[in-house]
């Protein structure tokens, strides 16, 4: 075997290390099941969609993955800068550091993810300051750049988010999350509560950002159109269990599980 082949193999091996490897993740609320025995791998640059009806455990799963909830069993191994680490067992300080550097979390309601009393620029700058930026001019320049990328005019920079429309707030939340260049973004119903034209623009924007930055993302939604547009792979959940997973188009065009068939056929075709 030649040296060139070896290096190709080594490279393949590198890329084969999943960014996020989840095994047997379980969360119970007393006797009720939040999510049970969820396992999957997420690779760099990949977007995973999680769909299912309300109460199917999507949000519980996402919270466990992002470290907001402590799971009862299972491991969530993230490929950190110092090699793969189980984020469930790591110290809270470390997990929170991860949450403001390598991870990002986009809430369904922008009010949960933004500081409503702080200007748009301050909201975007917060993560930069949280990781040690101490130069006002540079923080501001980066905030302007990011507001531009999510199509918020620079002259709205010193306005508070409460003066923004719902769509703008959501875009601001995305800018605030992506400013430190995370590698993995968790999104909980990012387009929920927005009207369809604003949704379309937001999806367009997110698709652009995900492709451009090579982000990995886990998107929880009940809107099949969102996953059709954004997700490479799809996981269907029902009653806390994963009932079907595969490539997005494959799952949506040729659903195998009865519940997936029901879900796909429930969408009104216009």
């Amino acid at each position, binding site marked *: 075997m030649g040296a060139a082949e070896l290096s190709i193999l080594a490279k393949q091996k590198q890329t084969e290390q999943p960014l996020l490897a989840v095994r047997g993740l379980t969360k119970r609320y007393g006797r009720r099941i939040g999510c049970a025995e969820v396992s999957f791998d997420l690779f760099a640059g990949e977007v995973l969609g999680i769909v299912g009806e309300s109460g199917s455990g999507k949000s519980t799963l996402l919270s466990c993955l992002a470290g907001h909830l402590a799971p009862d069993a299972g491991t969530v191994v993230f490929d950190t800068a110092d090699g793969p680490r189980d984020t469930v067992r790591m110290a809270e300080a470390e997990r929170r550091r991860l949450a403001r550097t390598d991870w990002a979390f986009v809430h369904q309601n922008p009010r949960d993810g933004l500081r409503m009393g702080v200007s748009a620029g301050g909201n975007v700058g*917060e993560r930069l300051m949280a990781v040690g930026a101490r130069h*006002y001019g540079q923080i501001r320049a980066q905030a302007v750049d990011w507001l531009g990328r999510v199509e918020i005019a620079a002259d709205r920079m010193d306005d508070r988010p409460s003066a923004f429309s719902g769509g703008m707030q959501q875009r601001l939340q995305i800018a605030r999350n992506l400013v430190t260049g995370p590698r993995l973004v968790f999104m909980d119903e990012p387009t929920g509560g927005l009207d369809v034209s604003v949704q379309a623009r937001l999806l367009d924007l997110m698709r652009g950002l995900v492709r451009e930055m090579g982000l990995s993302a886990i998107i929880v939604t009940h809107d099949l159109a969102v996953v059709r547009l954004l997700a490479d792979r799809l996981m269907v959940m029902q009653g806390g269990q994963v009932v079907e997973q595969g490539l997005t188009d494959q799952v949506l065009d040729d659903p195998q599980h009865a519940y997936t068939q029901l879900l796909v056929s429930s969408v009104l075709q216009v």
Partner: protein
Amino acid sequence: MTDQAYNFAYLDEQTKRMIRRAILKGVAVPGYQVPFASREMPMPYGWGTGGVQVTAACLVPEDRLKVIDQGADDTTNAVSIRKFFQRTAGVAVTEATTAASIIQTRHRIPETPLHEGQILVYQVPIPEPLRFLEPRETETRKMHELEEYGLMHVKLYEDIARHGTIATSYAYPVKVEGRYVMDPSPIPKFDNPKLSDSPALQLFGAGREQRIYALPPYTQVVSLDFDDHPFDPSKAAHDCDLCGAAASYLDEVIIDDQGGRMFVCSDTDFCRGRREAGHVGALGVPLAEGGM
């Protein structure tokens, strides 16, 4: 008769013991807010119930107490607290900064440098510097624990974005020994440099919020800032009109309804000391002649 009804320095001995334990813990962990079981005091919250409890726990009969309010020895808050301890502890009192062994203060640090062996007790309304940015106490405690202080700079960022400069002029946040971010109580930011490396022990008491924190002598205290907007301990660009001091913190006093005003030292003891030494400001007359 009534004087005999009080324990020395008002508080019972068990309460003093509890407060002293909190103070010792605060001294051991500079800048950390130690919870304590704050008692009801015979004064309203906001009038220095925390400071009074800390002072009461520190007082011994040999002490000489000075109480200042906004730099002055003769304003309501200062007079009432001084009288309170005269009556309940029978300690000697003074207005001279250098002669005092314990100084309870509200909103100022004396201009005269403190010396070793002195205790400076601050009255603190809100001990949590992150309070107005993050209202959840559980979350702010977590942020202190994990040293997540990025949010403090968001406040300063907002100042600059709105006013072009860091407009926070009092209760300016500081970092203690490179670890805890601390609210220095509502002292003007002009006084912030005096917090650092002080030979005196500095104790902070917040009665309503039930917190005590401390700066042991010679503790390093740094005011937060940005690289391109450094900390500026500003004061009114004026000299004291009574004593001519150029480097003391000034009060602006309106003296008539024609827009007339004068600037005087906020630290009355410092100002009187200078005038007794013969310094005269622009509107002042020598003290010997007995005039303003």
